[in-house]
């Protein structure tokens, strides 16, 4: 569920009326697209804050809080984190996802082998003798987005599962199919809930976030001193410190990850024309409901780029109108 980057690019070019007003290059589009995606993404949280204070209708599809939550849910993550040196201090998922700065890897070729089994397991990126093949660890695979292309076409998630660094197809892929794996690490954006489980049959407890000033008061008060059944944490310097200090494992975090930047990539066709290359591109991750607003926002910036006040004005009006409608 995403917004196709090629659809957006072609629509923007169409509206810009490239023959008459100007042209937006793929590089410009990719940068402006990333900017607009982040702008819309950030408005989700402010809008949610506004809508949550307004009585909602619970009629299907009309509850704005639910609709917003649906948009945000694309970016919701839940992960177990480990402490630093068995202490009560834990790293954020960011450090895990990046795993020492692992960046996006596009084009890890996975060996296509013809096997007779009903399902076939491929190891991501392990191709003997293939130039440019890269590898990732199981932790990186778990904390990243992996896309698999067969002969250049995206294979849907429903056709396989990623287990560790293995791709398990539910049914045998076509013999001779060239599999290409793209890996994008998930980037931490905003911390949600922290949960603690002592393991076994102990119930999971929600940790309360406190600031440094509150912490001292809470630790001093016998009635509210944190316990294993009502733990608290501070969030400082990209680290989580849990109280009581005896807790050094069993922490899970929900968080919002940052949308991955869109990318419209191409191959040079005949006559040096740009031909869309799906296997090296990445779609907008926003909810399809935001496609119109996304195109309008890109147009707004495009108007600035090509110095067309008319485009800027029309796009700005449309964006403003849409915002009014959403908040009315």
């Amino acid at each position: 569920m995403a917004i196709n980057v090629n659809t957006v690019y072609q629509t923007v070019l169409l509206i810009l009326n490239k023959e008459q007003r100007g042209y937006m290059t793929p590089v410009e589009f990719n940068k402006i697209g990333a900017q607009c995606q982040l702008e819309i993404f950030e408005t989700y949280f402010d809008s949610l804050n506004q809508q949550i204070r307004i009585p909602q209708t619970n009629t299907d599809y009309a509850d704005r809080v639910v609709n917003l939550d649906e948009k945000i849910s694309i970016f919701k993550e839940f992960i177990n984190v480990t402490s630093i040196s068995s202490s009560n201090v834990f790293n954020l998922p960011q450090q895990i996802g990046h795993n020492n700065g692992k960046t996006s890897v596009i084009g890890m070729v996975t060996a296509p082998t013809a096997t007779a089994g009903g399902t076939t397991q491929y190891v991501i990126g392990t191709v003997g003798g293939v130039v440019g093949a890269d590898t990732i660890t199981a932790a990186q695979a778990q904390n990243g987005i992996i896309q698999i292309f067969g002969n250049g076409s995206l294979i849907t998630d429903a056709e396989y599962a990623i287990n560790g660094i293995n791709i398990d197809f539910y049914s045998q892929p076509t013999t001779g199919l060239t599999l290409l794996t793209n890996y994008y690490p998930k980037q931490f954006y905003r911390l949600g809930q922290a949960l603690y489980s002592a393991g076994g049959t102990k119930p999971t407890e929600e940790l309360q976030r406190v600031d440094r000033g509150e912490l001292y008061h809470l630790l001093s008060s016998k009635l509210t001193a944190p316990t294993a059944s009502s733990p608290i944490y501070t969030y400082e310097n990209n680290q989580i410190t849990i109280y009581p200090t005896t807790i050094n494992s069993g922490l899970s975090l929900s968080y919002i990850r940052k949308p991955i930047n869109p990318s419209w990539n191409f191959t040079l066709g005949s006559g040096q024309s740009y031909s869309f290359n799906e296997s090296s591109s990445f779609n907008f991750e926003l909810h399809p409901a935001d496609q119109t607003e996304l195109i309008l926002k890109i147009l707004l910036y495009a108007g600035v780029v090509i110095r067309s006040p008319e485009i800027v004005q029309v796009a700005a009006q449309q964006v403003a109108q849409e915002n009014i409608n959403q908040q009315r």
Partner: protein
Amino acid sequence: MPIPNGGLITETNRQYYAGSQQFTSDGNANQTFTSTFNTDLVVGTGNYSDPATNGYNLNNFKIFTSPNASVWTELTPANTDVDALSSGASNAGQTNLTIVANTAATGGNVFAVVNKSTGFNYGTIASKTNNGGVDTLVMSQNLPVGGVPDNTQLSIRRVTTWTMSSPNIITIPQLLALNSYVKIQLNENTLDNVHGDYEYTRLDDVINNFLIAYVGPGKLISSVKRTDVIFHARRGLQEFSYDTLKSVKSSELTVPNSLSLTIPQDYVNYVKLSWVDELGVLHTIYPTNNLNQSPYYTFSQDGDGNPIQDSNDSNTEVTSQINAAWDKANPRYISGGFKNDLNNANVLDRSVYSSALGQRYGLEPQTSQKNGWFKIDQRTGTFNFTSNLANKLILLQYISDGNAYDLDARIPKLAEEALYSYITHAILSVSSGVQEYIVRRFKQEKSAKLRNAKIRLSNLKLDQVIQVMRGKSKWIK
């Protein structure tokens, strides 16, 4: 309904009444057994599966095995013993111990070697080397003085018979026979704490329920910190403990010759002190009130009456003369004469002459009793009794605040709603931007629900009232 079926009860009848949960072995080593008791399983430190360790004494349960679910054997190291025989003499001061080849002995410090007759533990088996009919065991420690003589009867004993690495999940490392039975049995005092537990709701549950039902968007309390709810819930429990909840704390004590007893650790206030007669009937011991009071300070004084200080500028003190006078006082002199002490409530144990004594005209009712008095010495934190109570068995009934121990942190279900109202009002009354009429509304609701709780907990039963009222028309001759 002996089997839980989706209601609030999650324990089977067997778990609740007998305190045991039974499992079947799958015939594999390292099988895990998950306890579903409402009570968490607790283990001590060290090798807590071994009754020889102190850690075992801290466990709140035992593990049993049985081939037929009828005859049960506790799963302890001693019950895993396999006979072995030393082969040749093994010298003292070395780690090598030779035994007749025995398949039960393996290395890795999983098994220990024990002298079968004396029970002496030679340590664990670090490694084993087989050489024909003889096994050479390398022990974890040197053999003791005297070594191990030839043909000594030994036992190969598993060191750890079960572990609890995750809360409430028991792992048994050794292989148990397929379809044999394993039982987790709670200790008796643990089980006692569980019985009657359905009458209460845990404070943690109250806090979670409150956050679910009373807090959120569109509600009067749109958001609140969990620690705030914890604070108000605990404060509410304290308040309820003082004047609403049943007083359940009591101690059976004997008054020593010193006539003083230390106040219980979780004491907040007393409900009643009574001495117990031979029939077990309680006789109320009254507070001294204005008869006597222990002094807080007992300064030594100079000629001008000023306190005297020592070299550290602290006031020096002397033994209280008030206490001394009270301790040696005969309560009969205060209460009025009576000839014989009546040691029980047996109405037939009174002669005409002795029971008539003490019936003076114009008695002072508050001192006209023979049960004795107590006073509280706030400085030393003790109950002090009159001399007639020395060596008497007494019952001290008192109230705590519901926060002293984990087991106390619960509220009777009859007062649960009152606690929710208490928390709601407490939060709304300190929140900014809440209209005063709303605060007042919840104040009234809190009071009404507290009143309901008090009526419910007062336990007035119609048949008991009738029984009492039957005496109303009795003729007074």
